[in-house]
C-alpha cells in the first residue's frame, strides 16, 4: 500500500514521522519507527513508500540515502553502497530474485507522513 494526500487511515499503530515537505521529491529520509530504521521515499508523482533502511548486501543501514528513479514502470531505489536496486512498492531486489527487504504501511494525512507496521508478506504493486 502506498499513501497519497487525503487517504483515510485506520486507527492502527501509525507513527507520525515528518511533514511530506520534509521528504525531497525522488529522495528519502530515514525515520525511527518502533525502534527500527525505516526508509521513507517520495516519488516524483508524490507517492510515498516505506522500506527497511537496512541494505542486506552491504549490511549497513543506508537505503534512505539511495537514488530514486524508475526501471521501466517500477519505482526503485538504488542502494548508495553498491547500487543494487529495490522495488519501492514491494521491497523486492531487482538484481537478485532471492533478496527482498521489508516494507511498511505508510499514509499521508494533512500533509503529514505516517508509517504503520511492517507488512507480513508484501503484496505486489499498488
Amino acid at each position: 500500500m502506498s499513501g497519497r494526500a487525503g487517504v483515510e487511515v485506520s486507527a492502527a499503530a501509525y507513527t507520525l514521522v515528518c511533514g511530506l515537505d520534509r521528504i525531497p521529491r525522488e529522495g528519502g529520509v530515514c525515520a525511527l519507527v518502533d525502534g527500527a530504521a525505516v526508509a521513507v521515499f517520495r516519488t516524483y508523482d508524490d507517492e510515498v513508500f516505506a522500506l527497511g533502511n537496512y541494505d542486506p548486501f552491504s549490511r549497513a543501514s543506508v537505503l534512505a540515502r539511495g537514488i530514486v528513479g524508475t526501471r521501466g514502470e517500477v519505482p526503485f531505489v538504488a542502494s548508495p553502497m553498491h547500487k543494487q536496486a529495490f522495488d519501492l512498492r514491494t521491497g523486492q531486489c531487482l538484481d537478485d530474485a532471492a533478496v527482498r527487504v521489508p516494507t511498511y504501511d505508510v499514509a499521508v494525512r494533512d500533509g503529514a507522513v505516517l508509517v504503520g507496521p511492517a507488512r507480513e508478506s508484501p503484496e505486489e504493486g499498488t
Partner: protein
Amino acid sequence: MSPHLRKTLVVVGHGMVGHRFVQAAIERGLTETHDVVVVGEEPRPAYDRVALTSFFEVGAEALSFLPDGEYDDPRVRLLLGTTVEELDPVQRTLRLSSGTEVAYDELVLATGAAPFVPPVPGHDLPGCFVYRTIEDLEAIRDAAAGARTGVVVGGGLLGLEAANALHGLGLETHVVEMAPRLMPVQVDDAGGATLARHVEALGLRLHTGVATRAVVGRDGRAASLDLGEETVEADVVVFSAGIRPRDALARAAGLDLAERGGVLVDEQCRTSDPHVWAIGECAAPAGRMYGLVAPGYAMAEVVVDALLGGPGSFTGADMSTKLKLMGVDVASFGDAFATTEGALELVLADAVAGVYKKLVVSEDGRRLLGGILVGDVSAYGVLRPMVSSGIELPANPEELILPAGRGGGEVALPDEAQVCSCNDVSKADIVAAAACDGTTRAGATCGSCKPLVKKVIEEYYAAQGRTVDRSLCEHFAMTRQELFDVVAVHGYTGFDEVVAAHGTGRGCDVCKPTVASVLASQLGQHVLDQGRATLQDTNDAYLANIQRNGTYSVVPRIAGGEITPEGLIVIGEVARDFGLYTKITGGQRIDLFGARMEQLPDIWRRLVDAGFESGHAYGKSLRTVKSCVGSTWCRYGVQDSVRMAIDLELRYRGLRSPHKLKGGVSGCARECAEARAKDFGIIATEKGWNLYVGGNGGATPAHARLLAGDLDDETLVRYLDRFLMYYIRTADRLQRTAPWIDSLEGGLDRVREVVVDDALGLGSELEAAMARHVAGYRDEWRDTLEDPDKLQRFVSFVNAPDVPDPHIGFRAERGQEVPAEPTGPVVLGTSIPVGAPR
C-alpha cells in the same frame, strides 16, 4: 512564318542570367517568332561567375558556358565586347558603343550588378581591384606576382572568397569588415565567431568592426590601408563591399527604379514600360534585389513564359545559402535571424569541434523557420525542406543538430587479460558471455572495471557488425557528450527538464549523477542547490565518502600536502573529540573516518573555523595535487614544486569532471611526487616545467605522456586550463584522462594540436571557461553550514535527529575505532525517546 512578322528581341548583358534566358528562349520555341540579339559588354561569352575563383586553377576556358562563341540557333546573334549606351523606350531603339542603333520589339535587361567601391581616398589607385569578372582576376593575379601583402575590404561571402584567393596567390592576407562579424548578412554573432576561428586558423588576419579610411599610396600605387587605429600593409587591395544593380540605362530612360536601386518589375518581371523586361541582379521584383543566381534563373524562365503568353510569375525566392568557404561549410536559410514574432532559437555551439548550429523555431515549437549552420552543414538537406514545406517538427528538434556520437578508441587487450580483478573475469569470459547474450560478474563489486568492460563489449559487437548502443542507460539514448551538448543547447538547469525533453521515465543511479555532473560543470553552482541533492551519488549528496558501515570519512583539503603544525593540531583535536579513526592517505592528506552523518556539520564547523575547506575526496572533481619538497629544501630541486602544486590545487579545486582528476608536481627528474602517475603531472626542468598528461593508478595504470616541455609558469597554466576544459567537454562518463586521450582520433597528437598549437582556435574560450570556474569557486562545506535547508538533511532520523543509528557499531583496533562486524538490522526498545516530526 513570313519574315516581316518576326519580331526582334534584344537582350542586354550576356552574363549568367542573360545566357540562361537565351537558352530557355531557344528551348521553348521563342526563337520561332523572334530574332534574338544579345549585346554583351565583356569580351567573352557568358561564363560561370559563381565558380569564378576556380579561374586561378582551371583557366577561363573551363568556366565558359559557350566555348564555341555562338548558340546552336542561327536566329540568335551575339555581339560581344559591345556596350549598350542608351535606351529610348519611346522609339524602342538602343544605341551601342559601336555607334550602331538597334531597334527592338521586346527588350530584356540582364545587366547584372557591379561591385560597390566605397569612395574612400585612394580607392582608384593602381593596385586596387574588384572581384567580379575574369579580367578582374587576371589583373589581380598579375599584381600579386610582385606583391607581398593583400587586403580585402569586406568580410561577406564574396570577400572571404576573394581573401582565400589572395592567400592562395601567396599574399599575407587581411580582411577588413565594418560589421562586428564576418558574413553579417547570413550568420549571427556566434556563427560569425565560429567562422572567424576557422578562417584565422587558415592563416588569414581579420579586422572586424573597422572602417577603411583611405587607401594610402606610395609611388603612385596602393601601399597600405588606413584603418584609423592601425595601418595595414597592402600591395593589393580588393574591394568586396557589396554590389549595386546596374540600372543606369533604365534610370536614364526614365523607367521606374526600386527605392534601394534595381529596375522595378512586376511579377512577370516587366518594367514600367510594357516592352521592357528586367531579370537577374539588375532587377528588383517587388522592390527587392536578389544577389544570387538561382532567383535570376527563375526570372529568366518567367519572362520567356510571359513572351509566350504563359502565366508564370516570380513571387520571391529562397535566399538560402549553403557553401563551402575555404573548406568551411556554411549554410544560412529561412528566417536565420529569428525576426518572426515569438521565434525561439536553439543553439549548439561546440567550440571544440568548430561547429555552430542554430535553429529558429516558431513560438509553439512546431515549425522550423530558419537556421544557421557553420562547420557542419550535414543537416541542411533535412532542415531546409522543413522550412519551405512547413512540415511539423519532431518532438526534440535539437536532435536535428546534435552531433552523432563520437566514437571510442580500441582496446588492444589479449583474450586472457583480466578485466575485472574483483571477480576474476577475463576479456575472453566477457566476450564469451556477450556472444550468447549472457552476463558475467564483472563490474559488480568495486565497479572500477566498468568502463573497460563496456569497451570490450562494444568492441565485440562492433566487430560483429552490430550497431553498438551507446546509451547512457534505459532513460537516455545518448552518450555523456551528447547530454553535455543537449544541456548546453537548451541551457537546462535541472534534471526534470532534461528527462522530460530527452529521456524516458524518472531516471536512475546512472543518469542522475551524470546530469548532476554536467550541470555542475556548466553552471558551477552548489551541488546541493535547487533539488539537485537527490541527483548526486551518495558521496556528493552528503559531501563526504560513505564507508562500509554507513558512516562517512572527512577529508579536508591540504593543498600540495603542505600543512602547518597548528593545522595538524586542529585536525588531531577534531579527530580526538569526535572519536574518528585517523589515517594519512595516499594523496598526501589526512582522512578522518567513522563520522556519523549527523556529526558531519559539527565536525566541519570546527574545521572551517580553523581555515580548512572541503577536499572534494567525494567528488568526481579535482582531488589532490601531490608535491615533493622541491627546490625549497631538496638539494636536487630545480624549481619550487610545492608552490606550483599548491597554486594548481587551489586553481582547479571543486572542478566537476567526468571522473576524478589528480595532479602531481616534482621538483626534478627524480620524480618523488610520482607526478607521471597522475592525470596531469609536472616535472621541473632547468628551464621551467615539463607537462605530462594522462596518467593514473587504479586497475589499468598508465604513465602520463609528455604534452609540452620547458614551459614557463604562465604557459603551463594556460595549457592545463585548456587541457582540463577540453577533457570535461568531451570525455565519456567515468572516463579518466588516459582512456579519453586514447579515444580521440589522433590521440595525444590531437590533444597537442588543440591545447598547444590551438589548431581549433578555441584556446581562449577554454581558458575563459576555466577563468569562470576559478572566479566562481566557493567552499561547499562553508556554504552548506550557512544554509539551514541544506543542513536539515544531516540527521540520523528525520523524527529523532540526535539519536544515533543503533545499527552502527565500532570496535577498537591498534588504539582506534574501526567498524564492527555488521549484524542484521538492530531494533531498539520502543522506550527510546522519539522526537516530534519536523
